[in-house]
């Protein structure tokens, strides 16, 4: 295609800056650079950037990423899920009830929990598309319903709201390591031996590296980000996600199965929440009724920082992943920099507001609205 032939004097040449500005990931990229610059300048000596420190904020960021991918695709499809946090608590508790209280094999507990949670996601989606109610209200109801069950069930079954013994119950199971194991141990041992990363000098772990492997949680995060990004930008279904969120009626006219797309995105969000929950209970060895509080908002904030529009139809999984990274780095970084941790919430509020304002501006740039 020759560019010279299609020049048209009515089309204003687009400056590279403007072109870059309409990429949804821009905000996330700028934010990531800013955040890393800030902490490299002010917290470099705090241990934030040695092996242990990096692992610390990477794990937190990876947690945010897992739920942000689901929230991102759902938001682009034009809906919200406020029940993500409750779903995390609920899923963890289900694993404990099935695997510990009822003594099922751990793989069966995990598979059953996934099935139940994805079914709840489908129910959310079904109610939203059938009633036409805002997903905000429908999933707010699910938020309370699931949280209620998460407290009620263990209290009835075990007379307590925290159930431990999950790690022991998962011993020797074939499926549990997919969520709870760490990989690359020998490499880290070697790095420790080489002196690249620190090793413990005292105690019963003397000689072992301070970081003994990459948790499966991070593998899940990366895999989900890649999967979400490819699905959204490179497949037919991805086009349907954009279309369903951009204008559902227009999408229906051209034959896009909007209702199915939305329900499937609710199911995917529930899947992501369950992955988060399983990784968490495998790491902690216990399930608590208060797990996952406020996670739905943190997921949504990460997605918005990543450039997605709250109104749907526009956004990027890579952006959402960067939003999650910013989130994790700042949350842990303030701790390393010895800043009062309550200020993190102030930061969060400010950055959210800035992101929403920026996104609205970018939306105008793209659509030419005035």
């Amino acid at each position, binding site marked *: *295609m020759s560019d010279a032939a*299609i*020049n*048209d004097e009515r*089309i204003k040449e*687009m400056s590279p800056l403007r072109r870059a500005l*309409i990429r949804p990931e821009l905000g996330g990229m700028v934010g990531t650079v800013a955040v890393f610059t800030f902490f490299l300048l002010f917290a470099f000596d705090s241990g934030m950037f040695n092996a242990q420190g990096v692992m610390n904020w990477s794990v937190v960021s990876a947690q945010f990423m897992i739920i942000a991918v689901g929230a991102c695709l759902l938001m682009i499809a034009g809906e919200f899920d406020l029940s993500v946090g409750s779903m995390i608590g609920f899923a963890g508790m289900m694993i404990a009830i099935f695997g510990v209280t009822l003594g099922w094999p751990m793989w069966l507990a995990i598979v059953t929990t996934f099935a139940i949670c994805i079914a709840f996601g489908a129910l959310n989606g079904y109610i939203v598309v059938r009633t036409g109610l805002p997903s905000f209200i429908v999933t707010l109801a699910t938020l309370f319903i699931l949280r209620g069950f998460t407290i009620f069930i263990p209290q009835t079954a075990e007379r307590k709201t925290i159930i431990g013994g999950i790690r022991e119950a998962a011993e020797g199971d074939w499926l549990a390591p997919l969520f709870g194991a760490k990989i690359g141990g020998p490499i880290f041992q070697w790095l420790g031996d080489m002196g690249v990363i620190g090793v413990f000098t005292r105690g019963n772990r003397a000689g072992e590296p301070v970081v003994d492997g990459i948790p499966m949680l991070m593998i899940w995060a990366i895999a989900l980000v890649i999967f979400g990004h490819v699905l959204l930008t*490179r*497949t*037919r279904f*991805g*086009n*349907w996600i*954009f*279309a369903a969120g*951009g*204008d559902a*009626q*227009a*999408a229906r*006219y*051209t*034959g*896009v199965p909007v209702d199915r797309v939305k329900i499937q995105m609710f199911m995917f969000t529930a899947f992501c929440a369950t992955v988060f929950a399983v990784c968490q209970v495998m790491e902690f060895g216990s399930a608590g009724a208060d797990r996952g509080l406020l996670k739905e908002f943190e997921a949504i904030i990460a997605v918005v920082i990543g450039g997605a*529009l709250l109104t749907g*139809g*526009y956004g990027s999984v890579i952006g959402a992943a960067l939003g999650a990274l910013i989130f994790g780095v700042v949350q842990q970084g303030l701790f390393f920099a010895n800043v009062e941790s309550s200020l993190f919430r102030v930061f969060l509020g400010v950055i959210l507001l800035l992101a929403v304002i920026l996104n609205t501006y970018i*939306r105008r740039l*793209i*659509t*030419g*609205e005035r």
Partner: protein
Amino acid sequence: MEPIIRMTNIEKHFGSVIALAGVTVEIFPGECHCLLGDNGAGKSTFIKTMSGVHKPTAGEIIFEGQPLQFADPRDAISAGIATVYQDLAMIPLMSVSRNFFMGNEPIRKRAGLRFFDHDYANEVTMTEMRKMGINLRGPDQAVGTLSGGERQTVAIARAVHFGAKVLILDEPTSALGVRQTANVLATVDKVRKQGIAVVFITHNVRHAMAVGDRFTVLNRGKTLGTAVRGEITPEELQDMMAGGQEMATLEGSLGGTV
């Protein structure tokens, strides 16, 4: 020549309301058939019957020589009857090429997985748009940045690319400025020359006269007959649309500006 679609004595009742009370139209390939009528004349009901949204209460539809009953709009689309509605079914935030192939995404298989073939989509979009006389900045340009006329043209080009034999345009010029109207009318002309039957719904006689080959006037759910280009004046069409009576007195006081 055989008409591609012939609709005889179509009636459509909604409960006690008679929206169509006997509409008869023949549409030939390669013609621009203007369907004129004032508000409430039954234009919308009629095109929805033609495009499979409504089932007629009575009457017969013959499409390519076969009697036809559409179950839903998808039937009509796959038979080759495409409708470009006023709201266009375009998503402003999405790129032109994503809009162009929305619901009909081209697939390329790689390693057994099915991917959206962006290269093909972009190329086809650019080519089709250039054929219609619109130079895009790029296939990734958002539809929101296009003018109303350009969007109309994208919607028409999309319908044509996906094999429309009959293209129904629902008041494509009603919200447009002078220059954009001219562009859309030029597009209609290009489409007609490809041998596609265009059904052009409008209540603007001038726009109809500019591209129409034949004119059918709808009034109170009935066809008042079809006229051929050159055998009817704009004033006569205007009178038929308005029902003839008050228009004559009105036009006197307005000096023929309507």
